[in-house]
């Protein structure tokens, strides 16, 4: 007696699969099939640039918090 809501079946790559509730199948609202050459991952570039900016911001912040005005940490 499971608790769940009905969702669509997988995105239609296998017509033999029955409709109904299954985990792990994206809803069948695929609007288009994108081949390798049609797909340009600009969104990925954006996400990675955002991550990079966060990284740079944190490194700069760390410089002000941890290093500015402190002595060097001597190695050796």
């Amino acid at each position, binding site marked *: 007696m499971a608790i769940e809501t009905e969702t669509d079946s997988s995105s239609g790559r296998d017509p033999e699969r029955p409709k109904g509730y299954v985990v792990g199948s994206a809803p069948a609202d695929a609007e*288009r099939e994108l081949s390798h050459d049609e797909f340009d991952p600009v969104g990925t570039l954006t996400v990675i640039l955002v991550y990079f900016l966060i990284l740079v911001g944190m490194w700069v912040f760390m410089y002000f918090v941890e290093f500015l005005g402190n002595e060097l940490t001597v190695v050796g």
Partner: protein
Amino acid sequence: MATYVDRYPDEAGVVKATFAVAFAALGVGALFGLVQALHRTGYLRVIDSTDYYTVLTGHGVLLALVFTIFFLLGLFTWAITRSLERPLPNIKLTWAWFGLTTTGAVFAAVAIVAGLFPSLDMSADVLYTFYAPLQAHPLFYVGLAMFIIGTWIAGVDWFLAYREWRADNPDERIPLQAFMVLTTTLMWYLSTLGVAVSVVVFLIPWSLGFIDTVNPLLTRTLFWYFGHPVVYFWLMPAYMMWYTVLPKLAGGRLFSDPLARVVFVLFLLLSTPVGIHHQYLDPGIAEGFKFIAMTNTMFLLLPSLLTAFTVVASMEHGARQRGGEGYLSWLGALPWRDPAFTGMALAGIMFAAGGFSGMINAGMNINYLVHNTLWVPGHFHLTVGTAVALTMMAGSYWLVPQLTGRRLYSRPIALFQVVLWFVGMVFMSNAMHRAGLLGIPRRTAEPQYQSFDFSATVGSVSELRIQMAVGATLLFVSVVLFLFNVLLSAIEDPIEMPVDDSLPAPLSGADGSPVVLDNLRLWTAIAVVLVVLAYSLPLASIVTDGGLFGESGAFPVFVDAVYRVAGVVA
């Protein structure tokens, strides 16, 4: 349409058994974690502070070794059979390694938990990093040795399946999931040599009283020789799911199969010759050797950054196929109501944050700021504690129905569970990182000192403690929900199609990519050379300085000889 359990009933039985052990360890280990968090923050102290280290050892060993590796054993067994499309060659061998690893894990767990009962005269309060001078009961080391040997036999099992497949398919490219299993296993063979030597040659004889002393720096170095690659042994199953399952869950396809292979080859090459980055503050290892380890570590960032690109691009492909548009608004087109997808995606986000703190840890001089502070547990609770653990839990929602033929008990509870883990870890890990920057130590039952107060630049120490306690409580509730959901799923009625288990082909397949990627012998040989370069001189130097078994005395005088030869050459 049959699912995995219908196609490979014997293997499904083994995978279910490994998952059962993994989830049992997860439950106990999570309880220990809650006890620790509430104890060190001072909100609830149900144990003596002296027992804190017993609980800490149990938490580390049960979660970081037993939970993760048993899940890996099951996942890899599933992956090798489904990708090679053949059952394992000998199911008795499969059950044999399961029996050996389970017995070993139970021995180690018994030795640890016995520490809570003084009358038993047995303990293993050596923390997860089980090197000298802390000494455990021999049962702990024997259990660990059995566990590791069991994983080796599991690797043999997978390679035998591959050999059979290769005999039937001499000209085929290795299927991607099988390739991931094999490269990870090769890395494991190489890296566990260190811990096996440490345990079998030094720690077991020492704990039995056959030898009086060991060289503690040698056992530390041999532990860390294994202690960094083991984190990739936890991570590779998560990566396998991110590469091969997550794109499908997103409604898309893997962006590039060859790039995934490159990543796994890089992990085989670079995971092991970096262990000394855990020893930046160890005296007795020259700075130059530490610098080599740091350089290798920075190279090791590359495969994870490649993964960030490939996995996000694969998710974007799914979102675009489902109508996603724009630079960032495509993120809204992803199936955020699917617990398996959402758990893995949130785990990936946390891994990006863990990557930042990992870069801090990896830098030799910046490491001095955070070494042995609470920052470090903050870091690895993002990586193994979220990237790996949350991916394994989320992946279970998709995998367990394939193993049982029964559908998941509750999707809404599953979704709540993965989000709760994410929220709990945001609180706890953020507070740990900040507390570490204030210098609050890790592995300390009572980090409160008389006539001394830690002072926070932003916020307050008590606010950090509250965040840690609240976060840990949410994490524990999340684990309970997970176990409850999986357990109830196991007693559902079997149905025709409990899960959509098809995996679409990658956008860019292996055909046409360099054949050398599949040359496992070549990559293993290069990996061995890199390890020899990174470790032979430091180990020789440690043995020369401190003796093989801890007696001082120059044995062997290998490094002096190298210096003399170098002087002659120069």
